[in-house]
């Protein structure tokens, strides 16, 4: 079995997964914060919105560490599925 080597060749598959599914995951996780975290009011609404930015940017920055575009779409898709599943379950 040859050892795996990272290259930038599959950048489009990975980056598109980071862009699209990173956005989804950022919004799902911040929405979970909106529903599950204590507190209310305009301040919390704004902090919840702000949370999407660091999550999205972090996923985009590190999505190249998936071994392939297919793996990026698979794992991030799974994470989205779980996050949106939990979100559906905890809807008030």
């Amino acid at each position, binding site marked *: 079995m040859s050892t795996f080597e990272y290259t930038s060749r599959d950048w489009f598959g990975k*980056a598109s997964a980071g862009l699209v599914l990173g956005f989804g995951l950022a919004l799902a996780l911040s929405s979970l914060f*909106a529903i599950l975290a204590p*507190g209310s009011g305009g*301040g919390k*609404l704004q902090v919840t919105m702000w949370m*999407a*930015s660091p999550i*999205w*940017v972090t996923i985009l920055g590190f999505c*190249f560490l998936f071994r392939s575009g297919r793996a990026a779409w698979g794992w991030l898709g799974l994470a989205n599925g779980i996050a949106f599943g939990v979100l559906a379950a905890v809807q008030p």
Partner: protein
Amino acid sequence: MRTDVVRMYKDVHTWVGIISGLALFIGFYAGAITMFETQVQRWASPPVALSPAPAIERTQELIDKTLAARPQAERQFQITISPNAEAPARMMWLERAPGASRRDPAPVFGSTLAADGSVEIVQIVGTEVAQIVDVLHQQVGLPLDHEIAMPIMGIICLLYGIALVSGTIVLLPSLVKDLFAVRVGKNLKRMWLDTHNVLGLFSLPFHIVICLTAVVFAFHDQFYDVQNKIAYGGNLAAKWEEGEHHDPAPRGPVIPADELLRSVQAQAPGFRVDSLRYGKDDEHGLTVSAWGEDPAYGHRAPTAGWVEVDPYTGKFTETDYMPGMQPAGFMPTLTSFFSLHFGSFGGPPVRWAYFFMGLAGAMLFYTGNLLWIESRRKKERKAGAVTQSRSTIVMGALTVGVTLGCVAGISLTIAAAKWLPGRVGDVAAWHSWIYYLTFLAAIGWAFARGAARAGWELLAFAGAMTLLIPITSLLAAAGLPGTGWSYRHTILVDLTALAGAAALFWMARIAYRRVESGPRDSVWGEAKARAVPQA
């Protein structure tokens, strides 16, 4: 760190950098200037022929007499505590045409009390030059509608985020070796790389803050829209209103403005009130907010925080955005995000620090482009090419033209602020045209002359345009007819521009020498290569 990961991220860093670098340069350079937006605005504001503001004790008399003459001002007006060039009247308001939206430009009016106690009202023709530089900053120089420019800016910021992650990963393996070494010498690529690394690593926290906040500024509508659907069941609008109760009915006599001011000062001793803003509408009734600064705390707006004051009791009613009095929890956290982007904490020292960090950021992107060009030259050289490829020629010209065109354009349009009023109709449009024509001309020049010669020529040109700022003030101070105005208290703007011009001329000199002695196959040594006679 695995070498293959580093190699992969190096590719990623190269490409996101080259796509977003020039737009980010414009965002950062214009952003550095906006640190002193108020001062530039003051420098550029024409003097207004108006009697001096009355004693602060007569403010309510001024309000009453003005409203008797101009009832529509009641909907929204501002009382400036210490009138100055950019807010020259104690009382100022906008006169909107009926049905005009809040965003439409509207003429500004100001009033004061004449010596005989009668009200004196004038239209105030201000300047929009500081606003135009701010928009360049927000839209990374894109001359598009705000709604179109902001998502594009957001995508550039996402690339910027990837560049920060990838750049850090690439630097990590050689961090200790490279960190404190800037190897100035024959190997120019090494020198630019060392400079790029030092700038990038030491300002990394600043860049992380700017990147994450700018992504929010670009996409907040989209974030809210999605969260409205998946987190709030479509009830976001109602949630904003939660806990708010409005009672438009008057609750007794309105406290006179000067007493209101004293009441604010008593409740918040460290807060320097700049203005009281009055509003009146059917939903809220009469409202007053006090705007100002307390350098001990962070501010939500770029230059101010504010507090809602009850006009009938003088008590604070909402302190969500009041420096030092924000309710514990989410609000101070939010204010820290904003103030870390705006540099609106700690007063002038932090503004200067942000000014230089903004310039350093612009340099980071500039050096990034230089590295791309030098790397390609080396790669192509190894592959046997003796001349530059089209891509390095194009990128070299773009790098020089865009960055120096931006610098020259901003300087020239600021200098023009003292020449345009009275000479042209739509001053704001002229400011935009002056910037963009200078910018495009610089790019055209860079392509026509090649990066090497255009490099020093445009640096000298940008220096000359920047020098026009203090020269303009000097001519006005000397009293030459038709030369605008000069304020003693905005001399720091002139001196800063003078220092900037000196720095640009110094860089032009270095770049000129470089053309004379640089490697012939470099984009920077092109002129010499062409000048070599056939032996």
